[in-house]
């Protein structure tokens, strides 16, 4: 378990996680570390509230899995964390989401700056139609990095972190579309890592991939959680059990009411001894 003791304790104590991030003097040095706190978070598309009352803590340098049946708002909740919902229009986010104590929905926050701290990997690999090098260089260049040697170093590091370097180090000029699906997805991970984010959001990153590529992505995630906080949406129960430290189970019980967070807790406990019967039914495959 990589979670800091304080955070872990907080997650265990509260029924739905913790409203305020817990800070101690000992942890002041790690102040900027990419932990989210969600308080009474709701999401509405126009007049329809689709998610309500989500309270949870996303601990730093650990993997948090969001699970639940299709249409329960997992991806929508994930996109609240880097404000990608802002791009859809007609979406309102209520409650408070803080990143290391900073309210990410306050007026003074530019979503563009937030997204450099909170990267995202999408469901389908979506490399840009350009070379591998230019794909990974996009983020750093956006941040103003121009020097060739500096870029080279960032790109090598990002590709190594995404476990793609050995396969592509002699082909950086290759067009990204020439890679296989699994390689493309690891390229997208490298591209997201190149901006040096504190958090990486992953929206079913392996659902479009074959089992071997999925395995490679999971191995990559296991390595990455030493560097960044990871929040992953997955449909795959075994995957959630294998790779995550904390699991949050979301459910929309009928179309008349918004989705809510049923239970959040340490993955091992959620999968062996969940508090809620609905969690147990879902995990054991009785619905969803």
């Amino acid at each position, binding site marked *: 378990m990589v979670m800091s003791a304080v955070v872990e304790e907080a997650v265990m104590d509260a029924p739905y996680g913790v409203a305020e991030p817990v800070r101690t003097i000992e942890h002041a040095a790690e102040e900027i570390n990419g932990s989210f706190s969600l308080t009474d978070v709701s999401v509405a598309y126009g007049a329809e509230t689709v998610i309500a009352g989500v309270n949870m803590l996303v601990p730093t340098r650990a993997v948090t899995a969001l699970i639940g049946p299709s249409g329960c708002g997992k991806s929508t909740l994930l996109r609240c964390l880097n404000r990608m919902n802002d791009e859809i229009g007609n979406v309102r986010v209520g409650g408070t989401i803080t990143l290391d104590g900073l309210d990410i929905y306050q007026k003074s926050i530019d979503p563009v700056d937030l997204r450099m701290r909170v990267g995202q990997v999408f469901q389908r690999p*979506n490399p840009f139609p350009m070379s591998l090098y230019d794909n990974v260089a996009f983020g750093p260049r956006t941040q103003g990095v121009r020097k060739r040697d500096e870029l080279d170093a960032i790109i090598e590091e990002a590709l190594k972190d995404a476990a793609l370097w050995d396969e592509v180090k002699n082909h950086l000029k290759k067009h990204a579309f020439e890679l296989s699906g699994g390689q493309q997805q690891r390229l997208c991970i490298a591209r997201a890592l190149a*901006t040096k984010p504190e958090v990486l959001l992953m929206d079913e990153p392996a659902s479009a991939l074959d089992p071997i590529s999925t395995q490679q992505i999971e191995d990559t995630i296991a390595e990455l959680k030493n560097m960044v906080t990871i929040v992953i949406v997955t449909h795959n129960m075994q995957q959630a059990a294998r790779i995550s430290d904390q699991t949050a189970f979301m459910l929309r019980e009928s179309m008349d009411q918004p989705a809510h967070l049923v239970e959040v807790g340490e993955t091992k406990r959620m999968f062996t001894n969940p508090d809620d019967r609905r969690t147990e039914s879902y995990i054991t495959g009785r619905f969803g």
Partner: protein
Amino acid sequence: MSTRTRRANTARTIEAFMKLVTGACVALVVLTAVFILGKIVVSGLPGISLDFIFAKPAMGMRAGGIFPIIVGTLMLVTLTALLVLPLGIMAGIYLAEYAPKNLLTRIVRLSIANMAGVPSIVYGLFGLAVFVLLMQIGKSMLASALTLTCLTLPVVITSTEEALRQIPSDIRQAALALGATRWRAIYKVVLPAAAPGIVTGSILGLSRAAGETAPILVTGAAFFLPTLPDSVFSQYMSLPYHLYVLATQVPNVPPEVTWGTAFVLVAGVSIVSMFAAGWRSVQRRKVKW
């Protein structure tokens, strides 16, 4: 014979008949195109020579070459491109990437579609009234280029918008998620990907402009000029109008001069269009979504 077999036979007959009818229509279209192009090539090619292309008209335009006319057309189309491409591509980008989905946007889009259907002589009269007279630019290459800009705008805007729409939205999402602004996502990722479509649409729009007679007839094209245009405020000679002049206004023009002019116009427009189509198909093959 059972009902089912009879019905099956009828269906087969209709099938064969419709295949024949639709095929015959295609054949008719192809024959027409071949006939027109064939006539232009057969009648025009004998008139083509280096002299014809690089000499001035002589003997009241009945002999000599069409150099000033070619130059006038190229200058006019270039000036039109300089005006219409920035305006049209920017407008297309706004409509595809920024415009909110509301009634106003729909009205704007509908108006642009309607602009494409306005007859070119109406653009000509508009250009005469607004650019030549009201803005006092006078009959000139600039007035004609502005008029052709109005005529070509809907084509450029629409093809830009269409080309941008064909780019999957998930790469825009990826760029935004990396902390890019909308403009950076468009400029660095979406626009380069859409460039083949935009360039092709623009070239097709401009080649239509190159062949238009009515709008330039009333805004600045000259019957005959002894010299090349020396500024955008000069009048100029142009291929489509020159063709009209040779065919209807000057008696006893040798047919190879008239058809030769037609050949130069058609060949010029075709070469550019084919280059655009070829370039696009190469680009398409390079990037598969």
